[in-house]
């Protein structure tokens, strides 16, 4: 296993986000392995989603995203018996693994631009010719004009403008839900590229 340590800033960010001791992050092939003495099985889904959220936001990952694509996460539990074989391959969310393995520039940009918006729960993308239909699921009980204004001005419009130069037309739609969208029920919306798990 090739161990590639995170740089100091990224490791601090990750530790802060996870609120636990992450000792190392390894990139064996296309997988990310996190070693932590304090992680529990129950905690693993949260760990994975937090790593995912940090991973997709840190500059360290963005500089050369192709090099750091992940197919899945795994967690090492050094304090467990038979620790050599206790590498738990967690696949808590198909979205996470799928999107990281196939992310393209637009998807990375969507994730980056939408990340500051804590009410964004999921993003679906579908393609038709040179149009990308982007449906954003918002955890918002009421239509919040001010929040939407920020979302339009800081995410939707900059992205539309950026990609119009590449002859890609981005068509945004918004869906308001108080709970995470039922992925199977709503799979007609397109491929989910982003799930934000602040409430896991």
């Amino acid at each position, binding site marked *: 296993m090739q161990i590639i340590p995170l740089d100091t800033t990224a490791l601090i960010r990750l530790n802060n986000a996870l609120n636990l001791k992450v000792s190392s992050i390894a990139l064996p092939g296309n997988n990310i392995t996190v070693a932590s003495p304090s992680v529990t099985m129950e905690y693993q889904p949260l760990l994975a989603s937090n790593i995912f959220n940090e991973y997709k936001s840190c500059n360290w990952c963005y500089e050369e995203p192709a090099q750091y694509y992940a197919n899945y996460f795994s967690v090492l539990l050094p304090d467990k018996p038979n620790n050599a074989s206790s590498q738990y391959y967690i696949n808590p969310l198909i979205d996470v693994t799928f999107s990281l393995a196939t992310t393209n520039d637009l998807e990375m940009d969507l994730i980056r631009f939408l990340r500051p918006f804590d009410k964004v729960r999921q993003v679906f993308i579908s393609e*038709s*010719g*040179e*149009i990308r239909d982007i449906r954003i*699921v918002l955890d918002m*009980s*009421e*239509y*919040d*004009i001010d929040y*939407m*204004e920020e979302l*339009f*001005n800081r995410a*939707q*419009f900059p992205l*539309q*403008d950026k990609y*119009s130069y590449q002859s890609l*037309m981005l*068509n945004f*739609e*918004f*869906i*308001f*839900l108080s709970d995470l*969208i039922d992925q199977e029920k*709503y799979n007609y*919306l397109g491929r989910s590229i982003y799930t934000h798990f602040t409430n896991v």
Partner: protein
Amino acid sequence: MSSKKTHLDQANHNEKAAKAMIDGDYYDWSCTCAFYSALHYVEARFADIPKIQHTDKVYEENKDKLKGEDVIKSVHWYREVLIGNEFPSIRSAYTHLQATSKICRYLTGNDKSACDVVSRDTAKRLVNEKLATIKEKLFWVGGLVGICNTPLYPLMDPIMVHNGERMGLTL
């Protein structure tokens, strides 16, 4: 294609409907009326722009270049693109109205009625602020367009042309 005057008349009509319903039980429809008012105000201004004249026309002319085969997209979508190009200062307000109108009509992915998602205060802000902003910025020389049918473009365009260059002018 409808004339500029017809679009203006319809825009005024829809705006009155939006205001008439805003204090009643059907205030959610105010959002849709406000959106269709904005749409007709925009089309009235497009009529002043020779390269556009009308969204339907320019959409038909360009859709094959813009999209893959067998893709028929809403003219609404293309109108948003044109607004972004021609009237960027109303882009946010127009997108607000369009998004809210769609939420009120289709309840996409939602298990709530329109009035549960969009409050009356929100509807009032959309009608009284967003629609008003669109009108003001489209017709910023004081409503002359409604009185005088002579195209005043580019004088009336919020994006002024100066020495052949487009200048963003935020009003």
